[in-house]
């Protein structure tokens, strides 16, 4: 019995020591930035907050769950769980489904130049002027889909993003003697 007690006491002492030796808990704001750096920056709002930073903020201050970001998918959830010490859980289907990255494409023959999509784009990736056809700068598009709904003539579609004809880039192989 005393043996167990001694072990218990030891554990408590060590736990307390460990706690203090951890040093300062990172300031909350720093944590928000770190979380923000792990989010995909699609700025789509599917998580229920108006952008990635607000979601990061909500995770820190309002105990928002870590599985609400569909564009980030499993990878982001895993990274958040690693960072915050929680468990890896599946994406909450209420917020949407994960999938390959898509980009918006404007059918320029149909576009009437209403500038509604330009106003909706969170990263200014659409160019055009009133009553001139608009177009998407593919490389700037985050695939948030926010421009799709406002279009009165339904000329915006989301296409799977394929870079240089390949979806994956291979790492450097052996340069045997190129």
């Amino acid at each position, binding site marked *: 019995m005393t043996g167990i007690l001694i072990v218990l006491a030891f554990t408590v002492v060590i736990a307390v020591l460990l706690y203090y030796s951890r040093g300062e808990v990172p300031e909350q704001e720093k944590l928000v930035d770190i979380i923000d750096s792990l989010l995909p*920056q699609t700025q789509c709002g599917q998580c229920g907050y108006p952008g990635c930073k607000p979601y990061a903020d909500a995770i820190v201050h309002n105990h928002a769950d870590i599985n609400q970001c569909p564009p980030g998918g499993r990878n982001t959830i895993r990274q958040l769980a690693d960072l915050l010490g929680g468990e890896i859980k599946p994406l909450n289907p209420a917020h949407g489904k994960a999938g390959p990255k898509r980009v918006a494409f404007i059918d320029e023959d149909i576009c009437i130049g209403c500038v509604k999509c330009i106003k909706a784009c969170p990263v*200014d990736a659409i160019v055009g002027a009133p009553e001139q056809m608009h177009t998407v700068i593919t490389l700037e598009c985050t695939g948030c889909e926010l421009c799709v709904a406002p279009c009165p003539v339904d000329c915006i579609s989301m296409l799977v993003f394929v870079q240089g004809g*390949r979806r994956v*880039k*291979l790492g450097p192989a052996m340069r045997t*003697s*190129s």
Partner: protein
Amino acid sequence: MNRELYPFPGGLQIPPHKELSNAKTSLITPLPDSIILPLQQHIGTPAVPLVKTGDKVLKGQIIARADGYVSVPVHASTSGKIIDIGNYTVPDPLGLKAPCIVIEPDGDDVWFEIKPTHDYASIDPKDLQDVIREAGIVGLGGAGFPAHVKLREGTESAVDTLIINAVECEPFISCDDRLIREKPGYIVNGTRMIRHAIQAKYCVIALEADMPEAYAALKELIDDDIDLIQLPVKYPQGGERQLIKVLTGMEVPSGGLPIHMGIVMHNAATAAAAYRAVIRGEPLISRYVTVSGEVNDPRNLQVLLGTPVKHCADQCGYEDKEGQAIILGGPMMGMYVNNMHMPVIKTTNCVLVTSTYNKSPEMPCIRCGQCVDVCPEKLLPQQLFWHAHAKNYDRLREYHLFDCIECGCCSFVCPSNIRLVQYYRKAKRQITQDEQTRSGADHARERFIARNARLAREEQTQNNELLAGSDIGELDKQAFIQAAVERTRAKRAQLGKQENSDDDQE
């Protein structure tokens, strides 16, 4: 000349199996039914098509132009009609499709106009680079790095040593051996030409001791200007970093480039292709390919780029049998493919048919340490394996995953049959992809912040205007106009005075 050699760490002696294919003269492969030319056959940006379906093209005509500096054009390898531009299976470890231009040969094999240059020494080294680039020359030994980029690196900094790599260390492959035996002049003159282009002080051609005929062929053509060096056989001696270590004793630091140490290395076949491009004006449209392993007539072929792999295998008596694997490249570093529909591209050096590949199930690592002993990069393969398995990417970096040259020595010796390299390749791919996503995300964040700032600014100006507007609305209009008139008058008066005073001064 007897040179001191500096063996590299690790490495293996593996049965070379070169005798299967290296004794027979190479065959010129007959025209296939279709030529499939991927827009990307090199490291860098894919080429951009210049033709459309239905166009007639001639042999050697540029059908896709280079896009950006690290890119090279694609040439039609025979004359014929463009029948499609679309996605086709290409040599790819994941079996992916990629954009290709497909030519239906007309059988005439008519050349486009070509511009031979008879004397490379009269050409400015800089123009030489352009010729080599326009000819679509990339490294033919391995990854397909555009040759002109290395040449420019060479002209921009002082080059001490040019190494021409004729070390063909992978088992079964003998295409460079055959090329050297059949066209030693191209190799030697190509070497001299590259040396002229980068103004290298010393020049070395290195090959292994199991290529005595090639050695003799080169020896005959070489004066004292080039050092011809025979090395004891050891895998993977043909690796860029390994060969530099062997010849110079210097180690290319992690993340460094040979050029930083005054060294430029080109593959022997690349030198030959560059010479051909300059002297005969012929772009890179064909190459030597070894077809070996379990085929009836293993040998080397001269193949037009874009020829389906199956067509090449058929020339050598290939029969489809149960349990055979097809490998593009050698057994150590090649890629396993599921079918033979993909074309031969600039970097395809070998088609290997084998049923003796590693099929045994993987067992747990017993920490025997054999993989550590053979790693030529002095890495810790079993640690890398742990961390790759656990997807612990930070630790993988700490253990220098990106220094791994994917030589396969570790997989070869592992008694537990662990396909170690496959884990590393996968991890490298994932890390590269993650990095791209990350930098894309950082960029999007900046733009999001910039946009919010812009919106805030716009709102501010709008508010100001509104405020100003409401002031006007509440004033008596007459009084407002009156006030404006007064202001103008006052201003005029002031101006008048000023003018007067200006006059005074004059």
